[in-house]
């Protein structure tokens, strides 16, 4: 198990390094060298400071070295090119919690409703409930979340006035965006859960449990749920990070001051240092979430636990 974790951590660090490096060079590859162009507009004194700190006037390799130095020693991802003096890390610290809350709410809705719907449809396979749930699920997967967000906003807010249209504040502000964000994951979890459940229901050990004289409810809670929910955990990692990193479109539509909408603004402002910093942050978050979930899963599922001690990793 330890060997497995070390191996996974190793790959994660390597992936992070590659992504960071790629991001760094990609941004500098943008035609017309926008960083230089943008820094030219800055007042002399500030430009001087920029150059000193980030070495924009030096050759690429120098810049690259300086970038890592700043990142590793000071945790500094640079400053915004658009808003003077605004640090990328500060911006992330300011906006990420909003996205985080929204994301967690959406995931909670998605996971809970998805699992319930998935189980319901698996247990009623081939019946009306099953078709209904699968119908919802396929809609949830097929309809882009900006469509859902727009529809929710138009009907529940503008037409009915139940919720605020845009902005951020009390809980009622979070309802529509959370719903819009969650529908897709509800659908995903419902489908996945249904497949898992059906798979587990077809396992021989379910027959054993029935042969023991176990009733349906008991069977579902003790054997089916346990074994079919476990794999769901693996979906959680990427989901958490993606939501945290910002549901770009949904945040934009509801004008929520989160990382996602800020990222979109940075893109339209061509604020390259900001884009770079956020990209690295989101990538790191994503990779770490996947790593943590994978390791957790290894601890929870006894089958994986053994496979690893026997073979020393996948």
């Amino acid at each position, binding site marked *: 198990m330890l060997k497995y974790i070390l191996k996974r951590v190793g790959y994660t660090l390597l992936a992070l390094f590659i992504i960071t490096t790629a991001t760094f060079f990609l941004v500098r590859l943008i035609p017309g060298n926008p960083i230089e162009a943008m820094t030219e507009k800055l007042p002399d004194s500030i430009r001087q400071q920029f150059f000193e700190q980030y070495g924009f006037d030096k050759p690429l390799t120098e810049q690259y070295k300086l970038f890592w130095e700043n990142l590793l020693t000071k945790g500094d991802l640079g400053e915004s090119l658009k808003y003077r003096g605004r640090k990328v890390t500060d911006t992330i610290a300011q906006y990420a919690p909003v996205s985080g809350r929204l994301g967690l709410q959406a995931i909670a809705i998605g996971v809970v409703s998805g699992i319930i719907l998935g189980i319901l449809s698996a247990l009623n396979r081939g019946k009306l409930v099953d078709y209904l749930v699968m119908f919802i699920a*396929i809609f949830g997967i097929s309809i*882009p979340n*900006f469509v859902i967000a727009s529809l929710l906003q138009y009907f529940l807010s503008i037409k009915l006035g139940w919720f605020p249209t845009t902005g951020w504040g009390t809980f009622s502000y979070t309802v529509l965006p959370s719903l819009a964000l969650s529908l897709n994951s509800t659908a995903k979890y419902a489908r996945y859960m249904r497949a898992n459940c059906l798979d587990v229901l077809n396992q021989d050990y379910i027959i054993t449990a029935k042969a023991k004289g176990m009733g349906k409810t008991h069977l579902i809670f003790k054997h089916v749920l346990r074994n079919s929910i476990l794999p769901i955990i693996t979906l959680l990692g990427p989901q958490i990070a993606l939501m945290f990193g910002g549901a770009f479109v949904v945040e934009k539509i509801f004008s929520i001051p989160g990382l996602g909408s800020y990222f979109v603004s940075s893109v339209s402002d061509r604020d390259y240092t900001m884009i770079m910093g956020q990209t690295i942050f989101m990538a790191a978050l994503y990779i770490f979430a996947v790593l943590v979930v994978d390791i957790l899963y290894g601890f929870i599922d006894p089958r994986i636990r053994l496979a690893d001690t026997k073979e020393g990793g996948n």
Partner: protein
Amino acid sequence: MNQPSYQVKSPLDFELKTEDFAFAGAREKQNQILRPSVSYWQDAWRRLKKNKAAILAIIVLAVVVIMCIIGPSLTPYSHEDVVMSDKNSPPSAVHYFGTDKLGRDIFTRIWVGGRVSLTLGIVGALIDITVGLLYGGISSYFGGNIDNIMMRIVEILASIPYLVLVVLVSLVVGKGMGSLLIAMTLTGWCHMARLVRGQILQIKDQEYILAARALGTSPWKIIWKHLIPNTLGVMIVSVTFDIPSFIFGEAFLSFIGLGVQAPMTSWGALAAGAQQEMNFYPYQMFFPALLISLTMLSFQMLGDGLRDALDPKLRQ
């Protein structure tokens, strides 16, 4: 022999004659009733036909494709015509789907945009599967260290959050269809490569391949007769599921301003433009959203249907 004497447990209701007990010749024996054998593709098609949702999806997709081809010529307008006097007009007999804030005919723009979105989806998925096939094929063919290294590369590439990377690459390569394709396929092929490799490895180890090899079947024949028929189903299904992700990706990029440039348009660009007018002219949002959703839904249902129809395990 000391055969014990048996008696019928419940008496028979008919008489038996001695000739009834004459031994039957070999020819008189019952022939085994065999079910007619059906080829894999015939069987798959038969099962797909039974799936009403999939058939409906095929019809919807066919209609959408046909409309994308002929739709723009059904109106006297071009997708670029700006008529400021006729802006934001609701759907009518003159403008079937209404006009946008520049007075452009939405009906025309929808089908022109559909060309872009569908082309992106289909070409993108084809690029993904081609690269994936080559990469996964090479990786599983050589095996050993090469396979190991190639798969590690895929693992790292796939661990980069997709949308973030797409945005970054779009910023570098610029706008337009080619750039969008590059951005979206740059790591999009990774899951295809994994899938191909997994399939090939799984089949390579199967007994019937071993048997074929032991019988001296040439590698090409094995690939043609065994590998391809057994992986093709999975590939077709994954391509079907891949197309909507491109359509969605394009819509997403349009939303954050990195999609195709005006006056050219796409479903994503139309939806993004309409979103800003949503509060006042919701009909502008309705048609692009409907077409995106309908197309994605159809591909989903078709993919589900194909998966069920092509799964050899389900065959009995």
